[in-house]
C-alpha cells in the first residue's frame, strides 16, 4: 500500500489473481515447519486449519496447508492486564498482540519450471504467504484428464483437486471415516473414476447394497445412482439374496450360490469368532480336510453327522476327538444352513465372476438381506481365494508368454475391512496375502472401514493412498497416520474435519496431503453417466472375451 492510501491497480489485479496475502514468514526450519506472522488486517478467525496456501520465495514457490493457528504477544504486561475496551483491543492487535500460523511446505515449484518437487529448503525471511489461487491448485493437483479424477476442492476454493487414478490402482488403498462421513459415496466415486478411466476391473463386496443400482442417502432419503446405474452392462450385479434384490427393483445378473465343496478350512478360520470355533476345532477341521480331501470334507462331515455314523468314521482318524468334532459339526450347521450354500451347484458363480473380471467387466456382489458377517465374510473369502489363484496363474502364464497387461489390474473393495484384516485374521486369510503381496499379480484392495485401528499394522503400512474422513476415536486417528511423515501436524487437520463434507487425502496417488471438500456426488454421477453413454453408445454384450 502506498502512503497516500492509493492502491496500485496492477498490484490489486495481481492480488486478486493470486489470492489474499496472509502474512510473512518470520521463522522456520525444514524439520519443524514455517512460522508466519499473520498480517494485522487478517482476522485470525478467518484463517482455517487445512487451508491450502503458497509461500512466494525469490526462486521458489512453496505449497502447504495451514497446520496451526496461534496467538502471540510482544509484551507480557498485556497478558497480566488484558484490555477490556474493544478499541484498545483493536489497537493492540498487531502491535502488542498478534497471531501466527504454522505451515509445513511439502512441495515447491521453481520459477520458470513446470513440475512440482518435494521441498529441500525453506522460504527466506519475510517471504509473502498468501491463499493459494486456482492456478496454484491445478499446478499441484493437476487438471481433470483421462486418468485423473477431480474429487473435490480445497477448503474455501473452487478449483479441482485431482487424484491420479493410474497411481491409485497400483497399490492397496483405504477409505476411512466414522459412520455417516460419506465413505460409501466417496468409494463409489473413486470406483466410478477407475471404471470410467478403464484402469482396472472392480470387484465390490457390497455388504449394505449401496454399490449396485441405487443407494439411499440416510439423511436426505434421496436415491443416489450407483455403479450399474451409471455404467450399465459393464457392471454385473451378483446377488447372494436375489429375492431382496428384486424387492429393491434390482435385477441381478447372477445369483450367487456357494457349493459346500468350495468351502475350505481357511474360509472358516476367518469366521472363527462368528462361528465360535476353538483352536482345537480348527485343528480338527484341518485333520478332516486332510483325510477326506479339501473339497469333500465338509459334505462328508455333514452327511455323517446327519446319518449318525460320525463316531465310527472318526475312530480311524488319529488325533481327532469325537465330541469336539460333533460340536464342530453343530457349529458348522450355521454355515450349511445359509440359503445360498448348496450341496451341489450347477454353475459356479465364483468362476463366473472371475471370468467377468478377467474380461475387464466389473462385479458388485450384493448381500441383500444377508447383512450378517457370516454370509458376507464367507462369500468374500471364497471369491477372493478363487481370484487369488486365478490371477496368480494368469499372471505367471502371461509373464511366460511375454504378454503385457494381462490379467487386468483388479481392485477388490472390502467394506468392514477390519473383520478380514485384523491382526489375528490377516496372517491366516487370503486378504492379508493380497494386501501384502498381490500387487505383483495386479490385484489390490480398496479397504473401506470405520475402525482403522482394527486393521493389522503391517497391512496399514502397505496402504498407498488414504482418504480419511472424520474419526473420533484417538486410536483410529493414530492408526491412520501411523508411519506418515508429519503425523502430528496432519492430526490437527484430521481433528478438524467436518463430517460428511471434508476428507483428508494423502499418499501415493497425491502429490501432498490436503483437506478437501468432497464434490457433490449427484452431479458427478450424472456427468459420468452422460460421458459414458456418449462413449460406448448403446449397451453391447461384452460377455464374450
Amino acid at each position, binding site marked *: 500500500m502506498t502512503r497516500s492510501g492509493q492502491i496500485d491497480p496492477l498490484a490489486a489485479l495481481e492480488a486478486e489473481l493470486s489470492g489474499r496475502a496472509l502474512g510473512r514468514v518470520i521463522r522456520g526450519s525444514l524439520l519443524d515447519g514455517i512460522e508466519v506472522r499473520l498480517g494485522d488486517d487478517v482476522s485470525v478467525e478467518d484463517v482455517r486449519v487445512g487451508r491450502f496456501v503458497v509461500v512466494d520465495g525469490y526462486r521458489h514457490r512453496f505449497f502447504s496447508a495451514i497446520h496451526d493457528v496461534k496467538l502471540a504477544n510482544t509484551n507480557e*504486561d498485556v497478558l497480566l492486564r488484558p484490555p477490556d475496551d474493544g*478499541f484498545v483491543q483493536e489497537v493492540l492487535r498487531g502491535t*502488542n498482540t498478534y497471531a501466527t500460523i504454522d505451515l509445513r511446505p511439502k512441495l515447491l515449484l521453481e520459477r520458470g519450471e513446470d513440475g512440482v518437487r518435494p521441498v529441500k529448503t525453506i522460504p527466506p525471511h519475510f517471504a509473502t504467504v498468501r491463499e493459494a489461487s486456482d492456478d496454484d491448485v491445478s499446478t499441484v493437483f493437476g487438471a481433470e484428464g483421462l486418468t485423473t479424477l477431480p474429487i473435490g476442492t480445497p477448503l474455501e476454493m473452487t478449483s479441482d483437486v485431482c487424484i491420479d487414478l493410474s497411481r491409485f490402482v497400483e497399490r492397496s488403498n483405504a477409505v476411512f471415516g466414522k459412520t455417516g462421513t460419506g465413505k460409501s459415496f466417496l468409494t463409489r466415486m473413486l470406483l466410478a473414476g477407475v471404471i470410467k478411466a478403464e484402469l482396472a476391473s472392480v470387484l465390490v463386496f457390497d455388504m449394505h447394497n449401496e454399490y449396485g443400482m441405487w443407494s439411499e442417502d440416510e439423511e436426505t432419503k434421496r436415491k443416489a445412482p450407483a455403479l450399474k446405474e451409471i455404467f450399465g452392462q459393464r457392471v454385473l450385479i451378483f446377488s447372494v439374496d436375489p429375492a431382496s434384490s428384486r424387492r429393491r427393483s434390482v435385477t441381478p445378473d447372477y445369483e450367487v450360490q456357494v457349493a459346500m465343496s468350495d468351502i475350505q478350512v481357511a474360509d472358516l478360520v476367518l469366521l472363527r469368532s462368528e462361528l465360535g470355533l476353538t483352536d482345537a476345532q480348527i485343528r480338527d477341521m484341518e485333520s478332516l480336510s486332510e483325510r477326506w480331501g479339501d473339497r469333500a470334507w465338509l459334505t462328508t462331515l455333514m452327511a455323517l453327522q446327519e446319518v449318525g455314523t460320525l463316531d465310527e468314521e472318526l475312530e480311524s482318524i488319529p488325533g481327532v476327538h469325537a465330541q469336539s468334532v460333533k460340536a464342530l459339526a453343530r457349529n458348522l450347521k450355521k454355515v450349511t444352513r445359509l440359503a445360498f450354500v448348496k450341496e451341489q451347484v450347477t454353475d459356479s458363480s465364483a468362476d463366473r465372476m472371475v471370468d467377468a473380471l478377467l474380461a475387464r467387466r466389473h462385479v458388485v456382489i450384493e448381500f441383500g438381506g444377508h447383512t450378517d458377517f457370516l454370509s458376507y465374510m464367507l462369500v468374500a473369502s471364497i471369491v477372493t481365494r478363487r481370484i487369488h489363484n486365478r490371477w496368480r496363474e494368469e499372471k505367471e502364464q502371461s509373464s511366460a508368454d511375454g504378454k503385457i497387461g494381462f490379467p487386468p489390474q483388479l481392485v477388490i473393495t472390502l467394506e468392514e475391512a477390519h473383520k478380514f484384516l485384523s491382526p489375528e485374521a490377516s496372517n491366516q486369510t487370503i486378504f492379508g496375502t493380497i494386501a501384502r503381496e498381490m500387487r505383483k499379480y495386479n490385484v489390490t484392495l480398496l479397504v473401506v472401514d470405520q475402525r482403522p485401528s482394527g486393521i493389522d499394522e503391517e497391512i496399514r503400512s502397505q496402504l498407498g493412498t488414504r482418504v480419511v474422513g472424520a474419526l473420533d476415536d484417538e486410536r483410529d486417528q493414530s492408526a491412520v497416520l501411523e508411519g506418515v511423515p508429519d503425523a502430528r501436524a496432519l492430526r490437527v487437520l484430521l481433528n478438524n474435519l467436518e463430517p460428511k463434507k471434508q476428507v483428508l487425502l494423502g499418499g501415493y496417488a497425491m502429490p501432498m496431503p490436503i483437506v478437501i471438500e468432497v464434490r457433490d456426488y449427484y452431479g458427478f454421477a450424472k456427468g459420468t453417466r452422460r460421458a459414458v453413454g456418449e462413449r460406448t453408445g448403446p449397451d453391447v454384450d461384452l460377455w464374450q472375451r
Partner: protein
Amino acid sequence: MRVQGIGAESPRLGEIVEASTTRLRAVAPQTFAAPAFGSFVKTSDTARTTYGVVAHVEHASIDPSRRAIPLGRTWVELEREQPQVLELLTTEFEASCVAFAEDGPIRPYLPPAPPRVHDFVFACDDEDVVELTEDLTFIRTLGATGLPIAAELIAASIRAASEPRSDRRAFLVRAGREVADLYRQDYEQASSIIRRFGLDAAQSPGKARDKSR
C-alpha cells in the same frame, strides 16, 4: 506555493515572540482567545511554512515581574467597573514544531531553521491536518519532545487529527498502533494514551461524514 495558502482572511491566532527549531511561542491578539491544546497551527515566512501542535497555553500578567492578584469580583463586574484589568493580562501559547513545507508536499519532520519572530500563527485548515497527519510521524516527534505532558499532548493531537477525517475510527486505530509501537516497552503508558482517545473512536463518526448529511 503553500505559503500562499495563508491569506489575510485566516484568523490570526497569535504573533511569534520566541522561536526555535523545536518550538515557538506566540502571543494571542486577544486575551483568553487561544487555540486549543493539541490543535494544529502553522506559520509562514515567505519561503517556508512550519507546522506545529499547540503544547501549552497560559494566561498571565503582561508584566512578568507583577503577578495578577485576586480581585474578588466576577468577570461581569470587572468588565463594568475595571475594564483595564483585561489590558493588563495576556494569553500566550507554545507549539511544538512537527513538520514544514517548502515548495512541495508537507514534510513530517522538523524544519531546518526556526520560524521567524513576529510572523503570525494561523490555524491549520482540514486539508492541512489530513495531509500532515496521514503519515503518523508527528506522534513520534511529540513523544521525543521530552515534555512532561507528552502523553496528554499526543492524545490531544491524535484527537484533533482524527476530527476532519471521514474514516475517523480507522485513523484512531492506526494512530493507536503507532502509540503502542512507540511505547512498546511500556504497556501501561501506551494503553493510558490510547484510552484517552478511545472514547472518540466510540462516539463520533467523523466530521467529513457529518458534512455530507
